[in-house]
């Protein structure tokens, strides 16, 4: 789609550590937390020398060097922040020395407390996350979101009637909620797309969605190129798009393939198999294999994209995830008693489908992947890659995008 390769100069902002008490690794976490290498003194991560950037305010034009985004602190382990006290493998802001040369430091400087400082700042400012759900009506999108974020976040709960008629064209409805956990505030925006794929003639029904995504990029771009910019640009760009595949058991439908082909280059698409309690385990595996093959043949790069893996660690983690995708999920907001425990599930005449049981469905895996390990990465890829692609296209003279309407209220350099 884009002939212009996103410029390599763009740095990835340094990722602050997650607060230690949020998200202790769940037993079902298949992605083993990555040791930072802290304390082992072995080959640690390459020396970061970037000026730390606040999450949520994506200030541009910063330190040119590259940081490994998976500093490891994000991977669900309560990393002890600050005060390692040891000499080995500390992120050294000092000169361009090799990464393993811990022995040259005499005494403890305290550079590693930067992580703690960033954490404090983040907790104060909070961060945004925008997630979009796309799929036919009735595939359980709202229920899944409620289950993921353990609260009533779907548009259903915001007052829209559940049984309203299928809209004639695809509509875009965005609802925002503030969620707080462990002192960290998150502004979660859920973008729903009722009417997608429900009509008899669904030609180009992905266009309103593509337009919405580009509009958000446009908004951000306008703010960015302002002469007097806001300190923290509000980020309404879609960070993640969950695409719900209907569990037919055969293969992808044409509409699914068309949608993903058209939009996989503007937004991170995570395909999931909805209502997975329709299929037995063998059917599920068969179906997944077929879907993966079809996506490959169609040239669809779903998140996590292979081309953005930075190092072997990333690659092996992401490979594991890619092998398991699309994840087969079941959502539910009702609780039942199973073996003395209260679990979220669906009760049928032949048993209870437990949502968080990894033998039943892959919801827990999706939640860990989406929220506990790759939340920040989703935002980064959106900012550094998708947004940059859009920006480059626009700055090269409207290569195929909508022309910008002249805006009186802003002075722009465009």
């Amino acid at each position, binding site marked *: 789609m884009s002939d212009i390769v996103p410029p390599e100069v763009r740095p990835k902002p340094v990722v602050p550590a997650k607060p230690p008490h949020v998200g202790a690794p769940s037993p079902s976490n298949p992605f083993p937390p990555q040791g930072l290498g802290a304390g082992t003194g072995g080959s640690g991560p390459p020396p970061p020398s970037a000026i730390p950037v606040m999450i949520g305010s994506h200030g541009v034009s910063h330190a040119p060097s590259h940081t490994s985004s998976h500093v490891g602190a994000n991977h669900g382990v309560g990393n002890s922040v600050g005060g390692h006290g040891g000499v080995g493998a500390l992120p050294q802001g000092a000169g361009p020395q090799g990464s393993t040369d811990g022995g040259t430091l005499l005494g403890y400087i305290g550079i590693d407390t930067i992580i703690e400082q960033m954490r404090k700042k983040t907790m104060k400012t909070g961060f945004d996350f925008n997630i979009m759900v796309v799929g*036919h*009506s*009735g*595939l*359980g999108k709202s229920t899944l979101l409620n289950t993921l974020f353990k609260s009533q976040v779907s548009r259903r709960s915001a007052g829209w009637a*559940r*049984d309203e008629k*299928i809209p004639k064209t695809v509509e875009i409805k965005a609802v925002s909620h503030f969620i707080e956990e462990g002192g960290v505030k998150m502004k979660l925006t859920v973008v729903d797309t009722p009417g997608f794929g*429900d*009509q*008899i*003639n*669904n*030609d180009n029904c992905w266009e309103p969605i593509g337009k919405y995504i580009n509009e958000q990029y446009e908004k951000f771009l306008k703010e960015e190129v302002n002469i007097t910019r806001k300190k923290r640009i509000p980020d309404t760009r879609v960070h993640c798009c969950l695409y719900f595949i*209907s*569990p*037919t*058991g*055969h*293969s*992808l*439908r*044409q*509409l*699914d*393939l*068309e949608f993903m082909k058209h939009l996989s280059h503007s937004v991170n698409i995570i395909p999931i198999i*909805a*209502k997975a*309690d*329709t299929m*037995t*385990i063998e059917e599920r595996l068969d179906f997944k294999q*077929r879907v993966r*093959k*079809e996506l490959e*043949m*169609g040239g669809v790069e779903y998140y996590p994209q292979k081309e953005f893996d930075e190092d072997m660690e990333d690659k092996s983690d992401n490979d594991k995830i890619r092998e398991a995708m699309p994840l087969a999920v079941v959502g539910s907001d009702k609780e039942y008693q199973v073996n003395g425990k209260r679990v979220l599930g*669906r*009760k*049928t*005449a*032949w*048993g*209870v*489908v*437990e949502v968080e*049981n990894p*033998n*039943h469905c892959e919801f827990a895996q999706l939640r860990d992947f989406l929220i506990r390990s790759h939340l920040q990465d989703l935002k980064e890829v959106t900012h550094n890659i998708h947004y940059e692609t859009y920006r480059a296209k626009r700055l090269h003279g409207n290569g195929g995008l909508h022309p910008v309407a002249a805006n009186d209220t802003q002075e722009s350099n465009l």
Partner: protein
Amino acid sequence: MTHFRPWNLLEKEYVGFATLPNQVHRKSVKKGFDFTLLVAGESGLGKSTLVNSLFLTDLHKDRKLLNAEERISQTVEITKHTVDIEEKGVKLKLTIVDTPGFGDAVNNTECWRTIEGYIDHQFEQYFRDESGLNRKNIQDNRVHCCLYFIPPFGHGLRPVDIEFMKALQEKVNVVPLISKADCLTPGEIKKLKERLREEIDKYGIKIYQFPDCDSDEDEEFKQKDKELKESTPFAVIGSNAVVEVKGQRVRGRLYPWGIVEVENQAHCDFVKLRTMLIRTHMNDLKEVTCDVHYENFRAQCIQTMTSKVNAENRVESPIPLFPMPTPDADTEKLIKMKDEELRRMQQMLQKMQQQMHEQDL
């Protein structure tokens, strides 16, 4: 067969035609029955699996499933499978008509036209055969019943469902089903059924109605009939696999959280569907097809034909020097009848000629 002895007044006056049903029964058992079933719905809703479960066959063993790329250029096709089944001496020639490609494209406008065309074609063929010369061995390929599969994922009827059923309601007995019902909890099934019934009423869709049972049937039968009627549309599950439950081997689906038994009434309405389709209402379905749908078609056909013939006649007649008196209604009818007869006789002649020609060869 007892003899007629009018002179003996002590014996009961028994003519003996009460054995007619037995004679009919014997004859028809020898001849065998046929039944044509059309299954329609998007791919992946379990149509083939359900048909296999219903008739305990494996009709689609070597089916090749196309992937999305291959299916882009596919249009709706009609495929037929015929199977001869025999049970207790009664032979059934079962034809399953499948409609792969229905509703699978991005743009599904009028995807039911192919199916409509097929049904009409069968009617046409039967009509021609019936008016033909040799009527002894007419092949009845008319579609007796159409099972329409509604996906369980939606919140009711979708636009394509409404359009399909409305297009076919006058041509075939439409029986809507909720497919893959094992992904719904009992509460959800109930809600969905209510919703569907409401919407079917609202849009005026004429689905197949069960006939009321006779008043002289016993209470149990009436009760069963009532239950049957109240649980439409049926929520069904099909399975090609056999699993072991409590020491018994049954058709079912094995999940990590439990086993779904296809023939368990508490799990799904499969048994009800099978009872209705095969055990109690098969003949009624055939009758309604013959008496109602086929007759509608035939009447329409004849009407269009006669109006065409009339139009042709008027064009051919020379311009009268003075206006001809318009014939009154009776003579019009007479003319029409005569035209029809003429045409039929012409057709018969043609057929005779053809047969003679073939014999000569």
